[in-house]
């Protein structure tokens, strides 16, 4: 019997959902509101040298990769399973587009982070 690949996608969905539920909101607040507006955190935090130093450190690099990859896998899985509810047949094509875009995003994130050095 062919093994189902569903548990892998479900695990990625669950991990991304848990991570985004735990710290997604605070990340949006830090990188999108507090630091860019300079109200709760210094704007200087987002300077080229600071962000570069963060992304060059193995911990910062790993953190960014995990966040981007798991958030993508979480959302495409959820979108894929909601397609049926809004009247779109969720066949192989839709599956390829959904999971394919998460895979592309994951590879693009890895490429960018490796290029940063």
């Amino acid at each position, binding site marked *: 019997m062919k093994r189902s690949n569903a548990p892998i996608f479900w695990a990625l969905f669950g991990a991304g959902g848990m991570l985004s539920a735990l710290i997604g*909101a605070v*990340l949006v607040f830090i990188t*999108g509101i507090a630091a860019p507006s300079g109200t709760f955190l210094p704007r200087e935090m*987002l300077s*080229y040298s600071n962000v570069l130093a963060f*992304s060059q450190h193995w911990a910062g690099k790993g953190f960014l990769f995990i966040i981007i990859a798991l958030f993508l896998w979480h959302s495409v899985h959820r979108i894929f399973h909601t397609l049926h509810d809004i009247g779109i047949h969720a066949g192989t094509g839709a599956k390829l587009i959904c999971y394919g875009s998460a895979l592309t995003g994951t590879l693009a994130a890895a490429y960018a982070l490796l290029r940063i050095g």
Partner: protein
Amino acid sequence: MSARGPARRPFVRSMEGWWRKNPYFIEYMVHEGTALFVAAYALILLISITCLARGEAAWNQWLAVLTNPLCIFVHVLLLVGFLYHTWTWFNIMPRTLPPIIMNGARVTAATITRTGLAAALIASLIIFIIAASLAS
């Protein structure tokens, strides 16, 4: 398809907007919809590191977008979506977890939800403190 095909047109009830007729399903669609917010934020981060990898000029261009008031407003909307995701994620969790037995009794749904929300609050505080200490 029979030979009489076109003559026979059985009534098929439209499924268009079915979920809008029941508050339970509206909530279901809204919490599923938070996936769009999560995807949007992942894309913003992906663009960020891509610009960073391209060098200082590309980063500064992107920073100008991030500091634009309109972009900050978009992040406020994203924040609302994420907060709703946190809320529903831990509200649904009692139904997605296998039964947990502690001291001979099943852990109640309310306890699981409250523990999850507390964990999110603590994790968020830790992340914010780390961010603030990195900034200073």
